[in-house]
């Protein structure tokens, strides 16, 4: 009798661990997929910037510093590895872009240029997509981390090879202030 009870308990425990393991695998893949979504948007952003810089270069000759800062930040962002590193370097790129856009606001010829306006809208869209992809990623990464850290899953999550996911966080206080990127305002 005791043996049977013991076996039942062991079987229940095994089922429960298998269930938790599969749930964590599912969440891990969601997190990876979320990260890929951010990556896609970051790549679009990197592709867009040279176009924008070329489009405004002619009209902003004496703002060369701003333009070089953007291109340098972009080059650095291309070398980023992993969410935390990328978050930091992309943050710097966001800052540089914010300055560029703020400066461009002062040039009426740029504001009325159809090509520049279309590029600015694409940039706004891409910035937002990066932001929303990050929001989505951080939400599911936090859920994944919580699922690993709650008792009693925390007793075996690490032993099964699960690591907590890095959040895509903005570390620098100044970067938190997202500049208004909106030339399309009515």
């Amino acid at each position, binding site marked *: 009798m005791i043996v049977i009870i013991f076996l039942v308990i062991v079987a229940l425990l095994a089922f429960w661990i298998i269930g938790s393991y599969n749930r964590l695998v599912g969440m891990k893949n969601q997190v990876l997929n979320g990260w890929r979504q951010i990556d896609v948007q970051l790549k679009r952003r990197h592709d867009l910037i040279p176009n924008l810089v070329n489009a405004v270069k002619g009209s902003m000759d004496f703002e060369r510093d701003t333009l070089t800062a953007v291109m340098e930040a972009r080059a650095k962002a291309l070398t980023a590895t992993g969410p935390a590193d990328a978050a930091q370097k992309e943050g710097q790129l966001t800052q540089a872009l914010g300055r560029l856009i703020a400066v461009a606001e002062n040039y009426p010829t740029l504001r009325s240029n159809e090509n520049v306006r279309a590029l600015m*809208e694409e940039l706004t*869209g891409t910035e*937002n*997509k990066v932001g*929303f*992809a990050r*929001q*989505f990623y951080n939400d599911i990464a936090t859920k994944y981390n919580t699922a690993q850290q709650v008792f009693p899953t925390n007793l075996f999550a690490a032993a099964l090879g699960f690591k907590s996911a890095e959040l895509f966080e903005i570390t620098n206080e100044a970067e938190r202030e997202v500049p208004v990127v909106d030339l*399309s305002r009515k």
Partner: protein
Amino acid sequence: MNLYEQQAANRRKTWLIMSAFVVFLLLIGAGFDVFYIGEAGGFVPVGSLLALSVGSVSSLVSYYAGDRAVLLATAAKPVDALAAGASADERLKLQQLTNVVDEMAIAAGIPAPRAYVVPDSDPNAFATGRGPGRSSIAVTQGLLDALDREELQGVIAHEMSHIRNLDVRLMTIVAALVGTAALLSEWARRGMLSGGGGSSSSGRRSSRDKDSGGGGAVMLVFFVIWAIAILAAPFVVQALAMMVSRKREYLADASGAELTRNPLGLARALEKIESAVAPTQSINRGSAHLCITDPLGRQVNLKEGFWSDLFASHPPMPARIAALRDMAYQGRTA
């Protein structure tokens, strides 16, 4: 009520409505078997089988064609097609719409729906389709002209929430079943009025001959239920659809705000939409419950209460705006 409860509730309602529909089909079919065919068809329930198969095929076809039918009825055009012949300003607006739809799809974590524009100057928007990945969002030209980027984002987030919450799928199913129920009850009514009358009474008489008087009374009750089911079915399903509609709008507002993290964008958009009171001409009664605001501009939407719950498709606009402003206030103090 949160997103997952709403999804679960919608799945439950979907099953409930579909089961009720199967019962309705069987009732119609069984009525035919009993009153018209009787012993002539042997013991094969021809009517039931016919009703079931016609009903299923018709519902499936309407379900899969549902979103195309709605888009066609409102004369909505896909954004890409419009962008080709548009002026620079219009093209920028369309580009903005495409971007905002993509942004909100990313925020909601679902595949991006297709974006459409309805040529109507009254601001309104709706979503249609069969769930995430197989849906479309349409906005009117008036909405596109009136709103700025932030406000447009709020509206699209609201529609995206309807798709993600499975509201849109439930509505497409309900629409398909309403159409089929109307079709079948129309057929059954014609059957009752025309040649069926004689055979109906003879069918009842023959069963009365065999059974006792009590059996005849049971048959009569069954006949009354059958007739009422046929006559009332389309209205009952429609009322069901309306009753689920109002709560959903608050939830879609709230989860839309969760996507944009900016409740004020939608609040301002709703204010602008409300100030344009003209009915949306190109959206008819059948698609009213899909829209962000009632396209018919009915007074019943301005009140709360039992009758409004029964007949209005949308909660009062001031209440929605106030709820969104509350959210923004909480966000600031937190």
